[in-house]
């Protein structure tokens, strides 16, 4: 039982990264009907921006110029990095996607893929192949709850990511922009809506998705403090699977599917030899897709790759 709960805790943390990245995918996918294959790398960029900001703030703090406690640095890092990374997202949209609005969707997927490669390479050129270590901003405290070990970091990561997901949900449900997004997801043709031009919505979608990816990146840095330029690839593609699994246009779906992905991976590794993890995890996902072709919350639709 202890064993089970320990893995449950592990899975919650692992799943929250998938969920947050899947959300970014899902938003772009449902609103613009595009695969944003650069998203995994935006997550990576977010983590590195977070690393830069955090290192800077730590240095600033150490110099005594602006003595900040660790948690304060973390909050500032998250906010600043969200802001900066959202610009990266908007640039990606402007350069890679807007010129291709009327092109086949697959072509936009290719640009995304290429932008991703450029982001990885750019990082390598700037920082070199050496891994960087995310500065430890908060003291790790381990609690032993009846044999189950929980750290303050884990609790913080799960809570922070859940609250961002909730915030996004409220934004999409309650605000004018959110409503425009939903309308656009429903039917691409009914734009411009509510007096909001389509480009604004596209840009906003990318900005929000990227900001969330930045949060995920920083939390990832807190939990797994070794960053490398290719960290976004595998993560990104798996989150992409989760996004589709959630169903088109569903924030709830993407969140749930992200967590499910984390749970499947952790629990498969718990029961079977961990080398079988991907094999079994993806077989389960394949089966889910066979029986629920439109994901958990998706509606049947018949969009095709326009040629």
């Amino acid at each position, binding site marked *: 039982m202890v064993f089970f709960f320990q893995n449950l805790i592990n899975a919650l943390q692992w799943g929250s990264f998938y969920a947050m990245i899947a959300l970014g995918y899902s938003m772009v996918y449902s609103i613009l009907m595009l*695969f944003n294959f650069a998203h995994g790398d935006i997550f990576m960029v977010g983590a590195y921006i977070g690393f830069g900001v955090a290192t800077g703030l730590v240095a600033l703090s150490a110099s005594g110029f602006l003595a900040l406690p660790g948690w304060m640095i973390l909050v500032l890092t998250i906010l600043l990095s969200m802001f900066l990374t959202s610009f990266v997202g908007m640039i990606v949209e402007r*350069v*890679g996607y807007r*010129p*291709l609005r009327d*092109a*086949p969707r*697959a*072509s*936009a*997927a*290719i*640009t995304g*893929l*290429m*932008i991703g*490669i*450029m982001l*990885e*390479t*750019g990082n*390598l*050129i700037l920082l070199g192949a050496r891994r960087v270590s995310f500065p430890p901003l908060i003291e790790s405290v381990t609690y032993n709850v009846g044999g189950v070990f929980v750290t303050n970091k884990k609790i913080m990561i799960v809570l922070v990511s859940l609250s961002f997901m909730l915030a996004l949900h409220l934004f999409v449900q309650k605000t004018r922009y959110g409503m425009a997004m939903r309308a656009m997801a429903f039917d691409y043709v009914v734009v411009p809506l509510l007096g909001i031009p389509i480009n604004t919505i596209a840009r906003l979608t990318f900005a929000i998705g990227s900001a969330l990816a930045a949060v995920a990146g920083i939390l990832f840095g807190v939990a797994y403090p070794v960053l490398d330029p290719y960290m976004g*690839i*595998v993560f990104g*593609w798996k989150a*992409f*699977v989760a996004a*589709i*699994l959630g169903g088109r246009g569903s924030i709830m779906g993407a969140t749930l599917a992200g967590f499910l992905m984390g749970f499947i991976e952790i629990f498969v590794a718990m029961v079977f030899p961990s*080398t*079988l*993890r*991907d*094999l079994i995890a*993806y*077989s389960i*996902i*394949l089966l889910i*897709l*066979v029986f629920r*072709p*439109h994901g958990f919350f998706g509606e*049947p*639709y*018949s*969009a*095709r*790759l326009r*040629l």
Partner: protein
Amino acid sequence: MEEINDTHPSKKKGALGGLTSVFSGIPVLGWLLGALVAVILEHYLGDPLVDRIGLDKIPVLFGAVIILKKPLMIPGAAVFLLLIYVIPIAVVARAGKSFSNRLAGKLMEFPIAVPTLVHLGLLYGAIHIWSDVSAYRVLTLKLMFVAIMLTLSLNVINGYMGEFSCSHPGFMALGAYGASVFTVLLFSSDRLFGDPLLPEALGPFLFPVGLIFGGLIASLGALVIAIPSFRTRGDYLAIISLAFLFIVKSMIENLEFVGGPRGLSGQPNYANLPTVFIWAVLCVWIINNFVRSTLGKALNAVRDDEVAADAMTVNTRRTKMVAFMFAAFWAGVAGGLYAHVLRYVNPGTFGIQKLAEVLAMVYFGGLNSVYGSITGAVSLSLLGEALRPLEIFKWIIIPLLLILVMIFRPTGLIAFREFDVRKVMQPKSNSDDEV
């Protein structure tokens, strides 16, 4: 540089159109003869010439590597290219214009197979002599031919059928391992499988069987995806095929008898240049036959409007399944060749990176087009090699190039063009500039 690359024999078919009016009206045959003369010149005069103009060896990839690595050698490389390639090709092609036109005309009077084989023979001759200069050229060419097969077969799914499949590296892996197990088990003494089961002398003759075996395994894999995927529509295939790719990779990692994650080596050296060339030609020929038949064009009908296709008696589901398995078969054969070219494979080879590479070649070259796939595979493989001295910056330049192509030609460089062998080989009159 552009111009010089254009005269490269294997690129000839795609990029003839743009030359100046002096060179219009020269049939493909003429260019092939020119290329043949050039490579023979290089073969016999290359080394003495290199000594004379102060290069340390024959520029392997038309000097691209030299230019980027040692700028001081640019003049030497330029002289070499001019003397060995540009001038001979131009002179032979231009001077032999009427001769080659007449010859091409004569050839066309025979059944189509005759001129085709003559052209292919000349092309192979040029490539063979060209590649004799260094083992590096041979390797580059082999990988390029494998890339052509992969790109073309993926184009069948992503271009002709208009679905987005991500499982091509998975099919490749199935083919690579299928064929490798076949040859290693039967013909090679190896750590994993022990002594060969059949006499080694039989190996090269049964190698095609091994490749086809690999291809069939790949198409069985495709069947697994196809059954659930083609019941519904939308972006379903993209995601299922991606999951399939991960599953295949993970499955091979868990199969200890093929070496698990550490890979499988010891493939016998069967994939020599002529073998790879013949398979690539076969692949192009069969796929081109297919996509030009009404049965194959049903793919376009399914892509452009499935309901209408159905109402016009097209069995849409069967069409999609057949095409998917067909494409997977060729990916498998290409994978088998790939494994025997490198003589080592591991599951890591067939991951997301390979996927990005093949997708890039398909969309760069052009959708729904055999020309496009050949162009995409050849140009990106050669570009990848030529830019190698730039090291990491290569991975800025190539993606950037692709993004630009996508922005200005969203369906790729040469999309929606039929590849008609007859037209390619036809003699040309002066007034007719068209390819």
